[in-house]
């Protein structure tokens, strides 16, 4: 049965001069008189009225207006976990706002069955002057919980956020991490049938993001319907049972084949594609020696590579960051895992030093390392950044270390004899020679 049915949803916004926001009364007066003058002058000239101004035909969009959503229809079943993907400005947020009733569609309608909660931002309505306790109560009510519901879940919420000690401190004195944990915790304890989530995973550190993802996955397993906007394609692929791809307000694809949606997206995406990438919005400080600002996969020059990767693709792992305490013992490297968590190999930047040492100098640095794609079997893999200096073995705590995922596609080698997935973790092209005697 259907949780959400969208029937021809369209949303039109006006742009530029005619923007409705911040109207002052004088503008309205000015516009009225201008249109009167236009009407009067039209009487005296033989010019026909321009169709764009009249806007009589349905499909004509008045000048200065644009369609954020254009005739979007789909059906989401109960229990579906839907990844809503598309570029910035493709209409994802507008769609969520319409379904969650924050704004109304210009045309079309949506039919919704079940209690719906939307989480478009972590901590909406949190007030710095209020204590943690007070904010939990208030935020719960804002998200649509009843008073007794909040009360009964209060202890659980606080425990999940891990802020018991600071419950009676105003949240303006919280660290940003504590703030986000508490805010997310309230939202995570909503009990909706349908949950809409917009890009909230982009905030917070890696550990928090993992926790969020786990919670979303749980919601899906409990039979809730989840619609979830993300630029994190790995998360979408892991969690979602179907994908919806939007581009310039139009629905391009809605299919249970999430990987195919992502491929479609990748082929349309161009440069703003957030895939194969670890890049915190707020810089994370791990230690006093080396702090990465981003880590991503690309070709040698850093240009985006497709996903899934082909075995013959030239793929490099790029790490950019700042060396703050240059030392001869400072090493940066990565561990390479299968998606099941089996460590395949571990490598350090010093491995590149055939002759003499490779020292990381003070300041900005950019490291790159070729990923041995020809060795790998098809499937998912994970890269986790590691680092060490003498006396400190792990510069990044395991649970929040920078990491990214990649997928090797099924078309491994261009030979018709290599069709099926091989057994084993590795699938290197082993040399063979066939003779007759």
């Amino acid at each position, binding site marked *: 049965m259907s949780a959400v049915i969208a029937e021809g949803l369209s949303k039109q916004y006006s742009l530029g001069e005619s923007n409705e926001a911040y109207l002052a009364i004088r503008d309205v007066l000015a516009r009225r008189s201008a249109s009167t003058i236009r009407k009067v002058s039209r009487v005296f000239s033989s010019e026909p009225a321009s169709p764009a101004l009249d806007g009589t035909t349905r499909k004509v969009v008045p000048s200065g207006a644009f369609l954020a959503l254009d005739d979007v229809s789909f059906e989401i079943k109960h229990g579906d976990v839907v990844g809503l993907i598309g570029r910035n400005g493709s209409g994802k947020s507008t769609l969520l706002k319409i379904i*969650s009733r*924050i704004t*109304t*569609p210009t045309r079309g*309608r949506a039919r919704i069955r079940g209690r719906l909660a939307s989480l478009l931002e972590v901590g909406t309505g949190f007030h710095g*002057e209020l204590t943690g306790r007070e904010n939990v109560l208030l935020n719960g*009510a*804002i998200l649509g919980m009843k008073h007794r519901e909040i009360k009964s879940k209060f202890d659980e919420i606080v425990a999940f956020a891990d802020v018991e000690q600071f419950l009676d401190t105003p949240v303006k004195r919280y660290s940003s991490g504590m703030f986000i944990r508490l805010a997310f915790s309230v939202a995570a304890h909503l009990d909706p049938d349908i949950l809409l989530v917009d890009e909230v995973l982009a905030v917070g550190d890696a550990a928090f993001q993992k926790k969020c993802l786990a919670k979303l996955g749980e919601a899906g397993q409990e039979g809730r319907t989840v619609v979830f906007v993300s630029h994190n394609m790995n998360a979408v692929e892991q969690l979602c049972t179907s994908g919806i791809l939007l581009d310039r307000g139009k629905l391009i694809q809605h299919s249970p084949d999430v990987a195919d949606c992502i491929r479609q997206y990748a082929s349309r995406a161009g440069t703003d594609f957030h895939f194969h990438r670890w890049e915190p919005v707020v810089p994370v400080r791990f230690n006093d020696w080396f702090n990465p600002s981003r880590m991503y996969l690309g070709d040698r020059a850093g240009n985006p590579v497709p996903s899934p990767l082909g075995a013959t693709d030239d793929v490099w792992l790029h790490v950019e960051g700042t060396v703050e305490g240059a030392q001869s013992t400072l090493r940066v490297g990565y561990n390479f895992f299968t998606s099941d968590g089996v460590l395949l190999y571990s490598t350090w930047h010093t491995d590149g030093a055939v002759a003499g040492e490779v020292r990381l100098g003070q300041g900005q640095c950019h490291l790159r390392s070729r990923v041995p794609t020809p060795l790998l079997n098809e499937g998912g893999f994970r890269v986790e950044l590691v680092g060490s200096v003498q006396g400190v073995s792990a510069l990044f705590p395991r649970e929040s270390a920078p990491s990214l995922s990649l997928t090797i596609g099924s078309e491994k080698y261009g030979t018709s004899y290599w069709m099926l997935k091989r057994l084993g973790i590795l699938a290197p092209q082993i040399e063979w020679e066939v003779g007759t005697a």
Partner: protein
Amino acid sequence: MTTRRDPESLPELIVDSEGSDRQYWRDLLDFRDLFYFLAWRDIIIRYKQTIIGIGWAVIQPLMTMIIFTVVFGRIARLESTAAPYPILVLSGVLAWQFVAQSVAAASNSLVGSANLVSKVYFPRMLVPAATIAISVVDLGVALLLLGAMMVAYSFSPSINIIALPLFIALGALLALGLGVWLSALAVKYRDVRFAVPFAIQLGLFLSPVGFSSSVIDEQWRLLYALNPLVGIIDGFRWSIIGGPLRFPMEEATISLVVASLVLLAGVRFFRKTERTLADVI
């Protein structure tokens, strides 16, 4: 979680460009807890990091009363036969301030909650409505001041005092109507932010705050009563001072009619604006 309710048993909700009124009022009821929380939040925040805290609710009417007593009572020598002049003035000031403060706070409330409005759904009318709850609390505190004054002047209130809540309700009705209307208007036209304080300042002198409405000539009384505050202020005075004062039947009735019309128009305008509020704010 094993005992999940069946979402199929819930009624279907339709989201379109019109928005159904029945659904809206049902939501308003559903979200009543949010109303309490919004009011409660504003009350808490209002006096955080202030030294005299809730004392501000007393200082404003007290100062207004002193100034008006001096200006109208001493300098203009307006007479008060029924009660000591300060009490006459204070009862008017309380009524005035209750309505004026509610309207001022409510008209800015939606713009001030822009972040909330653009990120979460709830019936937006709760926002201006909740601000009125704060003014009720302030009024309650200010009434303590009135009590103290009565003790100081050894003036005992009449039995009419039991009618006071009715006039408070009338004031709230008017404030709600104006507040709902102005808050939606303020989202579209930021002029409201400047116009409202100005209108309130003017209104203070057009309403019988510093003087008794009996100063007005008989023939102009009904016309004067078209200002809905006349009925409310006279009602406050009648409830508090009682005795020799006439029950303001016509004024209160006119005030009730005007306030109801304002509320009706305000709610209609608000509902019309509300649909695209998140796009405009």
